[in-house]
């Protein structure tokens, strides 16, 4: 490491935090869904992909599809609307599919969402270019780079980190500090008693899946201007995000966020020291953590 100057390390940490913010945002959604519904949501990557496609479709295709001239979703509208659409799709999935297997072992939820991910990926691969399409709707205000002293950092990426951090804080606040959050937590802890108190547990479950899916959709919209929007963009990410959630402790919100950021940074450093390992280091950490603390870093022992 001695031949790598401090400046380079700082830049890589910064880039790592940027990736970590995406991991955090995605694993947060996964953790919420698992924590509340006990579903290992393999379709999370597909929901993220849908978010990115939502932004792309809103910008490039909506006008042609609907035939309404001038109907385009700018980035800001997409940032607002697309997560809602993806969230609504999540509610449908929960109501039509996941609810039917809610009483079974969590393994079935994993298998079901795995199949769902395949369907979504396949549909988008057939409808759009498999190699990915560019999203050209980055707002003017976020163009350009900022001088951080040790590097030039794209303004948009700083914005994406801000969105991620704010969303994480907001979700944490909703779940830990609001009445709704308390109901959610109670609903998972003991559905029977909770519903005896007159709380609509099925609606809470829908809401949870809505929240998780919307977070994935949000991450997708934010990612669209950075990466090519392609049907396989989620599949490449989902396995890593899984590892993040497992390392953090399944269902732990704080764990998901912290681990996401930390692994992003770690990955960034590995990209300097031994780049080919970058995609695998997460799994080494995961294996080690599960040996040492089976419930993950922030999880409660079962």
């Amino acid at each position, binding site marked *: 490491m001695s031949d790598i100057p401090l*400046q*380079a390390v700082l*830049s*890589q940490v910064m*880039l*790592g935090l*940027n*990736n970590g913010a995406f991991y955090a945002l995605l694993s947060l959604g996964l953790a919420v869904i698992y924590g509340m519904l006990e579903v290992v949501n393999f379709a999370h990557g597909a929901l993220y992909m849908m978010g990115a496609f939502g932004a792309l479709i809103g910008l490039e295709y909506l006008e042609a599809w609907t035939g309404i001239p001038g109907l385009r979703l700018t980035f800001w509208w997409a940032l607002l609307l697309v997560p809602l659409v993806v969230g609504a799709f999540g509610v449908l999935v929960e109501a039509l599919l996941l609810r039917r297997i809610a009483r079974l072992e969590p393994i079935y939820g994993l298998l079901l969402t795995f199949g769902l991910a395949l369907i979504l990926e*396949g549909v988008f*691969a*057939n409808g759009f*270019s*498999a*190699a*990915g*399409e*560019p999203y*050209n709707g980055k707002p003017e205000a976020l163009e*350009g*780079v900022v001088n951080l002293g040790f*590097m*030039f*950092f*794209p303004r*948009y*990426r700083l914005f994406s980190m801000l969105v991620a951090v704010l969303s994480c804080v907001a979700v944490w606040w909703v779940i830990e500090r609001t009445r709704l959050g308390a109901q959610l937590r109670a609903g998972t802890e003991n559905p029977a008693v909770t519903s005896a108190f007159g709380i609509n547990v099925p609606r809470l479950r829908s809401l949870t899946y809505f929240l998780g899916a919307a977070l994935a959709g949000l991450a997708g919209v934010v990612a669209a201007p*950075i*990466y*090519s929007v*392609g049907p*396989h*963009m989620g599949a*490449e*990410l989902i396995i890593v995000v899984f590892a993040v959630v497992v390392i953090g402790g399944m269902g732990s919100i704080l764990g998901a966020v912290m681990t996401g950021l930390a692994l992003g940074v770690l990955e*960034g450093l590995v*990209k*300097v020291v031994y*780049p*080919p390992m*970058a*995609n*695998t280091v997460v799994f080494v950490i995961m294996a080690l953590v599960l040996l040492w603390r089976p419930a993950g870093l922030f999880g409660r022992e079962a």
Partner: protein
Amino acid sequence: MKHLNFRIAPVALAVLIACAAATPAQAGPNGIRIGVLTDMSGTYAALAGNGSVVAAQMAIDDFGGKVLGKPITLVSADHQNKPDIGVAKAREWFDTQGVDMVNDLVTSSVAIAVQKLGAEKHRITIVNGAGSTALTNKECSAYGVQYAYDTYSIAKGTATALLKQGLDSWFFLQADYAFGAALQGDAARIVTSLGGKVLGTVKHPFPSSDFSSYLVQAQSSGAKVIGLANAGGDFTNAVKQAREFGIKQTIAGLLVFDSDIKALGLQTAQGMKFTTGYTWELNPETEAFGKRFFARFHAMPTMVHAGVYSSTMHYLEAVKAANTDNPEAVMKKMRDTPVNDFFAKGGRIREDGRFVHDMYLVEVKTPAESKSTWDQLKLLATIPGDQAYQPLAEGQCPLVRK
């Protein structure tokens, strides 16, 4: 418990017998059958994929649909970029469907495997999609042709042109897999042989979505050129992110297709120089083919599509001239006859299977220069075939007597 599980055995047998009775006899047709084996749903679907099937069908139609008095038929399949799927499909085509020639073969791993199988089964394989030079070197085959391009020729064209401009220090971003290594190796050798310097190479996992870390490393190396030894989605993401980080160095894509430029958009890609075997903007002939293809496929052809058309035509001409579908005779005819069409002028197939034809150094137009959505490239220089490709003497093909 145990015997219960096995009760299914007699049923299985009965089903099999029933199916056997219903299965028609497998008789191979006598005409010429051409197979297009390609990636129809993955990363390379845009540059090869269904467009290659269309190109092959166009060639068959233009030829008249018949050769030696028998119909020409076309079969196609998706190999999903997996060599095991590709080789199983090709084997079945050869064994049961009487396929005489397989074309496209995008993805080096699939191409190498199927070319090997073709050599074993004595069937002709024409590679248009895959670029690995291994196909005409260690893995070369008497029944295999590599038609549209290879990593050597595209790396050489681009590297030479940039070095001439004084861009003599390079840093490579290389996809960490065999194809990326071949591309980087070829380019690095050419850069050093022309007096340039390679300041460093970073191997990134394949596929990757975030290249910022590698780009920042490349930036701080101080190299004048960042060479991208990757393809498809990796390439487009890397270019986009280089622009995003405001990287001022020259970005050199070593393997770029028209479809990639389309994916990037001219705004991002403008000014980029690369080497290709075909693009429709070159001359009236290439444009005519491009427009005919567009009418059928609603996208302009890539060099792979053009190569599939041209090579299928060449194959059919050779069958006609040899007056037989015997692969040895057809191969001999194909080697002996030069190709003169929109794709190649005086193109020839060498002993190692390399199809030698002119390559083109092109530059991506600025949005202002572009007159239509597909008007993307302008020609900078034509690289004559004998300079574009690796000389036979330097090759490692065992079929070439030295």
